[in-house]
């Protein structure tokens, strides 16, 4: 009831002076119609704070926590919390909130993070012990005093999620299911009031570009194919963010075509990845490499040079492995069989488009690649059953073990890589992680299980009056909302 009243008052205030409110309002298009809910963490970050986040160099930077220590094996972390962070209702944020949240997320009914043990040392100190060495950086913390009496079994249905009480830079003003969430600045935010006074997340499904062009939203995530249209429109700026992940083609190593590492290297040499970036409207400076990267390595721009686009070199390698175009039909042959395979492409991420370009590039090298697009769920079934030849999908640095570790679906069996990945599970020391990733990358130079076609990237479109975004590490409006501001000189 009180909440209703509060909403009513807020509505009046909004109504009282809509024109001036518009000036520092940012409207962002979001696709999903039920975005405000726990575990959709990009947006959680507007209202709730994590213990620490990664800064531009990929290092941890305190948020709720101002200092921390960890045990030698990185399994136990002790955090000392800031004392100046308060929930919107005025209560201070304490170690009990952290413990409560971790217990809650480990509850069998929710089962998001089982196996984490937290102990409250004192009001502002909490000790977290996990079974695996790890800093958990994608958890935000919820107020214990408001939630402890609620039933975890109904976690996803709590009214709290539609009227949250948070501690982040913004607080929820109103939530209209299927339409929008409106946030206003949190005047008590510990870093000081953000410059944007009002943030509206508008649910637009797939119509984000239309909404942007018709001036209804200021910021939207885009597709590379939409870049030419936005680039020709002076109202908007384009930002690209990059992530350590990539869009690779994984080879099925057991397949007779790909068993020979020389052939896999030749395939990499056959691909002009600069050209791929150009035709897909991705920024030229995006990382092209054959390595696997940690976030730190990416942000410090530390990555080894890729195997270059080198058609002649590729031809030599193909020939060394026995693949030559003997009958001059444009396709390589060996023992009378053409070099032909089918790539299974996961639906989504626009990967079917990438596949078309790759197909054209390989054709120039005398390799015939057919394309089959699958729904992701079906794709996983096929993958596990070994029913594929090559596989174009997403590579996440977090899934190294799944993709290249023991028992991987590719049949990749490099003992050195297995051992390195096993060592990776035992550590959370960032320097050690960097070293292991570098060693894995070295092995990949001679025995590549995949070819990284494109860097993991996202494109954002923003109205020019929205300032504070930059490529490539501050391009995501959702995670950097508190650092943005609105410049009104350009007008709407």
């Amino acid at each position, binding site marked *: 009831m009180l909440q209703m009243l509060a909403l009513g008052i807020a*509505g009046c205030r*909004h*109504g009282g002076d*809509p024109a001036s409110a518009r000036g520092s309002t940012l*409207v962002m298009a979001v696709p999903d*119609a*039920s975005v405000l*809910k726990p*575990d959709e*963490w990009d947006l959680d970050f507007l209202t709730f704070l994590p213990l620490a986040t990664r800064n531009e160099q990929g290092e941890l930077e305190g948020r709720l926590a101002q200092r921390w220590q960890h045990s030698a094996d990185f399994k136990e972390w002790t955090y000392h919390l800031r004392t100046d962070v308060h929930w919107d209702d005025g209560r201070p944020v304490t170690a009990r909130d952290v413990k409560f949240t971790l217990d809650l997320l480990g509850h*069998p*009914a929710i*089962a*998001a993070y*089982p*196996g984490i043990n937290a102990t409250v040392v004192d009001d502002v100190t909490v000790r977290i012990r996990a079974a695996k060495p790890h800093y958990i950086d*994608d958890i935000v913390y919820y107020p214990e005093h408001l939630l402890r009496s609620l039933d975890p079994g109904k*976690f*996803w*249905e709590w009214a709290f999620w539609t009227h949250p009480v948070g501690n982040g830079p913004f607080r929820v003003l109103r939530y*209209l*299911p*299927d*339409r*929008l969430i409106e946030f206003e600045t949190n005047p008590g935010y510990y870093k000081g009031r953000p410059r944007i006074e009002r943030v*509206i997340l*508008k*649910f*637009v*499904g*797939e*119509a984000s570009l*239309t*909404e942007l*062009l*018709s001036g*209804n939203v200021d910021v939207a995530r885009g597709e590379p194919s939409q870049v030419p249209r936005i680039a020709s429109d002076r109202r908007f700026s384009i930002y690209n963010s990059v992530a350590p992940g990539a869009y690779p083609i994984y080879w099925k190593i057991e397949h007779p075509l790909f068993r020979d590492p020389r052939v896999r290297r030749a395939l990499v040499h056959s691909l002009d990845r600069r050209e791929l970036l150009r035709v897909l409207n991705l920024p030229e400076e995006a990382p092209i490499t054959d390595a696997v990267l940690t976030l730190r390595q990416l942000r410090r721009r530390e990555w080894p040079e890729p195997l270059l686009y080198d058609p002649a070199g590729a031809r030599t390698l193909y020939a060394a492995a026995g693949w030559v175009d003997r009958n001059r039909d444009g396709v390589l042959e060996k023992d009378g069989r053409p070099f032909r395979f089918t790539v299974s492409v996961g*639906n989504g991420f626009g990967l079917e488009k990438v596949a078309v370009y790759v197909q054209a590039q390989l054709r120039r090298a005398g390799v015939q690649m057919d394309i089959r697009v699958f*729904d*992701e*769920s*079906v794709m*996983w*079934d096929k993958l596990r059953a070994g029913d594929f030849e090559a596989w174009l999908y*997403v590579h*996440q640095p*977090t*899934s190294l*073990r*799944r993709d290249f570790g023991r028992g991987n679906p590719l049949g990749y069996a490099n003992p050195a890589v297995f051992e390195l990945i096993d060592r990776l599970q035992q550590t959370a020391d960032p320097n050690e992680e960097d070293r292991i990733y570098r060693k894995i990358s070295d092995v990949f130079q001679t025995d590549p299980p995949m070819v990284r076609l494109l860097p993991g990237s996202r494109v954002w479109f923003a109205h020019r009056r929205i300032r504070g975004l930059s490529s490539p590490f501050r391009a995501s409006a959702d995670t950097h909302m508190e650092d943005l501001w609105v410049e009104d000189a350009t007008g709407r």
Partner: protein
Amino acid sequence: MGRYILKRLLQAIPLLAGIATITFVMVHLAPGDPMDMYIEQRSQREFDPEVIELLRKKHGLDQPLPVQYVKWIGNVARGDFGESFRYRRPVATLIAERVPYTLQLTALALFFDALIGMTLGILSAVKQYSRTDRIITVGSLVMYAIPGFWLGIMLVLVFSVNLGWFPTSQTRSLDYELLSAPEKLLDRLWHLALPVFVLGVASAAGTARFMRNKLLDVLSEEYVLAARARGLSERAVILHHALRNALIPIVTIYGLALPFLLGGAVLIEKVFAWPGMGLLAVDAIGARDYPVILATSMIAAVLVVLGNLVADVTYALVDPRVSYGGKRLA
């Protein structure tokens, strides 16, 4: 009358049970594991197989299929559709949020269909073989053939983006809450205009054709000729005699129009980002969100059965020749 309706409702039960069984079997036979999608959505962190097992257990996916089926049927009978894998909220809540939007869209499209379709049909029949008739006949054929989703895209391009006359997506304006009641209504209708037009125009074309043929049939009946012979004006003949009788069969096709519209609504919702049930279903299919897939198809079937029932009852009301005994004229 009440008994007739009750009887029809009772007949619908085995029908719905049949549909439930068919969809359940289909959904579980299909390849793909919902848990894969769950992992992919959260691929920012490495996933514990342990978590997946917990989730599988929680959703009952670890049990043998017949057990799952019996449990599911039992729950559905009590109105519990389970919890969405993807949104992790009760499916009933999700559907309750979405169904009103789909109903708004389809109901208004039906209304549009009736209004425009019948008017054009009557006009066409009255002026048989005239130029108007020919334009309407061919025009309705073409409108029936134009894919709605394509028409929607083109209209958005012209009227929303280039001319800025209509909104491009969503159901209401951002400042909807500040509007007065009549303005709110206008705002809603303004947002509904394009989707309703696109959805309704094809079925209106169908209605126009049907109406024309029926009216022409009736106009050649003896009692109409007799009315004409009595010197009644053409207007009176058509309005009082012919139209009333031609309307009877029209009523029945509205029951049949509903599945057509619901199917079309899936595509239109996609084009206009309309937060209806169709969109929910499409997304659920991609994510293998079993509870949502099952529930949306059940709801769609219920709507169709109800639509048929309403059509039959209206038919019975307007046509005194039908006895309530349940015998239905085809």
